[in-house]
């Protein structure tokens, strides 16, 4: 993916604004999440296979890719929706356990939430490593580190109370369709 000999200094590039849209099927309650680049979040109801998806909410956010300042390699993050910090809701959740272990070492854990065709997936290990390197390299506090981990560390995404870093409640600033 990227040149191994380079020590890589990752900067954000290709920033694009949009909406993280959540939809639910009103028959089976299956939910799907996707990113919309439209000026306002789509709210149309539609049928896909056996599912009838309805708009369930949206939040403003942005996507980006990372480009190495040294070797100009670009890593794309089209599948990533955002980062989430553990809220500590479930003592047996792996994300919670890892976050607590790392806190004592001034390492702050963020889960990368990624989706493909509406379904949650994990970012590749390479991409998690690039994100970790990017966020940690921007820090100034001595000894502090950021660790980006896969979203699947959450025990139960449906009940997880951690919240993605996105702009909920800003829709009053956006023209409604």
């Amino acid at each position, binding site marked *: 993916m990227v040149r191994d000999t380079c020590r890589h200094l990752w900067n*954000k590039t290709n*920033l694009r*604004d949009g909406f993280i849209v959540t939809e639910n099927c009103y028959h089976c309650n299956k939910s799907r999440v996707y990113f919309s680049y439209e000026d306002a979040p789509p709210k149309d109801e539609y049928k896909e296979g056996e599912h009838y998806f309805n708009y369930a909410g949206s939040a*403003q*956010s*942005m996507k*980006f890719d990372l480009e190495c300042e040294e070797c100009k390699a670009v890593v794309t993050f089209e599948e990533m929706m955002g*980062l989430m*910090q553990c809220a500590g809701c479930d003592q047996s959740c792996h994300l919670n356990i890892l976050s607590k272990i790392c*806190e004592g070492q001034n390492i*702050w854990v*963020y889960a990368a939430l990624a989706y493909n065709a509406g379904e949650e997936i994990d970012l590749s290990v390479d991409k998690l490593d690039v994100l970790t390197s990017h*966020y940690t390299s*921007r*820090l*100034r*506090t001595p000894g*502090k580190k*950021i660790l980006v981990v896969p979203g699947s560390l959450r025990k139960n995404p449906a009940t997880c109370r951690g*919240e993605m*870093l*996105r*702009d*909920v409640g*800003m829709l009053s600033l956006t023209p409604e369709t």
Partner: protein
Amino acid sequence: MTVKELQSKLNLNALNAVSDTEVDGAFISDMVSDVMAGAKAGNVWVTVQTHKNVVAAANLVDAPAVIVVRGKKVPEDTVQMADKVGVTLFATDLDTFQIAVKLFEAGVRPTT
């Protein structure tokens, strides 16, 4: 200038422990995504937002302090999270423009 010195100069009300971390510039936005994209380590962040995601974003970009303007009430879970990650939370009745002027007068500038 440290966060403590900034508190004194701007007469800010601290909601949790005030750190001795050095402030380097300011970033003003009410959008978490803006901060994630544009804020630099050391920036003090000025916002009307009080959700605990503000603290998660400040921690991610290594902002040592957040100034919540316009007298917004900051929820207890936000203060607790700020304590945990070591981000100082300030509250003020001043609006964003007034705080921006005071930051400028104190020598704090936007960073590019």
